C-alpha cells in the first residue's frame, strides 16, 4: 500500500488562512456589473439564425443573434422544442421571422466571418 499524502500542520494552517481571507477579499458585486446583459441595443443589428438540435429525444429550436459586422458578438437563446422535426423546423422559421429586424433576411453573415482555426 502506498504512503498517503500528508499535509504538514504549517501548510494546513496557511491553507485555512487563505480560506478565511476569502470572506474578506471577496466583495459582493454591483448591479452595474451585469450591464452587459442589459445593454442589448446591439441586438437591433443582428442576423438571426435558426438552429435545430436533437436533444434528449426532442428537437430543440434555438435562435442565434449574431452582429452582422462582428459575428463573434452573438447570443443564443433556446426558444422551444418539438417531438416532430418538421414542426420544429416550421416553428424555427416563424420564430426567426418574428425576431429578425429584416424579415426578408437580407442581412447575412457567413461562417467564414468567425475565422475559426480548425487545427
Amino acid at each position, binding site marked *: 500500500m502506498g504512503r498517503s499524502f500528508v499535509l504538514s500542520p504549517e501548510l*494546513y494552517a496557511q491553507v485555512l488562512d487563505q480560506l*478565511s481571507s476569502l470572506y474578506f477579499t471577496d466583495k459582493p458585486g454591483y448591479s452595474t456589473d451585469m450591464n452587459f446583459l442589459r445593454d442589448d441595443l446591439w441586438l437591433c443589428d443582428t442576423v438571426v439564425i435558426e438552429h435545430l438540435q436533437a436533444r434528449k429525444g426532442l428537437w430543440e429550436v434555438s435562435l442565434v443573434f449574431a452582429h452582422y459586422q462582428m459575428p463573434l458578438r452573438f447570443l443564443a437563446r433556446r426558444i422551444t422544442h418539438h417531438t416532430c422535426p418538421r414542426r420544429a423546423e416550421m416553428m424555427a422559421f416563424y420564430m426567426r421571422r418574428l425576431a429578425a429586424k429584416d424579415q426578408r433576411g437580407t442581412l447575412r453573415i457567413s461562417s467564414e466571418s468567425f475565422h475559426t482555426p480548425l487545427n
Partner: protein
Amino acid sequence: MSAATKQKIIESAIRLFNQDGVANVRLQQIADEAGISVGNLAYHYRNKDAIVASVYENLFEEFADILSFYLKGPGLSDFDRQLDLYYDFFAKYKFYLIDLFEVERSHQTIMSAWQQFVAKMLIQIRKRIDYCVQRGLVRPEPIPGIYDTLTHNIWMTIVFWIPQQVLKGQPFSSGHFKHAIWAQISPYLTPRGLTEYESEVQPLGVNP
C-alpha cells in the same frame, strides 16, 4: 451481496466495540450480531485486526468529512453546524476513547493517523477564532496565549465531553454538548458577536 455484508459486519462491530470495548469482543460475537456465520465473517475479514482496521478506515473517512466543513459559511452558525457533526461522530464512535490506549499499543499506524486529525482539528479551531476576531465577532486576544489555551479547552470539550457524561452516569445530548462549548467562547464575544450568537446560533438548539 458482499458490500452489504461487509457494511453489516462493520456496523455490528462498532455496536459491540461501543458496548464492550475492542479488546473484549470476539469474532463469534460480531458474527452473531451481524446474523452470519463465523466462516462467512472470516471470508470477508481474515481476523479481528482486519475488522478493527476497517472500522478505523470508516471512522477516518467520516472524520475527514467533518473537517471539510470548515467555513462553509461566514457566520458563527457555521461552527455550530460543525459541532453537530462532531457530536454525532463521537456519539457513534464512543469506543474510540475507551480503547484509546489499547489501540495505541497495538495499532501504531491508527494512532499516528489520529494524531494528524487531532492536529488539524486544533488548527481549525484556532484559525476559526482568528477569523472571528477579524470579523469583529470575538474580542482581540486580551492576554497573549489565552486563545491557544481556549483552543485546547474547546478541543478537549469536543472530544471528552461525552465520555465524562458517561462516567458521571448522566445523559448526553447534542444541545448540552454544544452549550458546553459555546459557554467557553461566549465570554470573548463582542456585542456584535453576542447578537449574532443569540439570533443565529441559539435557535439551532444550544441548551443550557
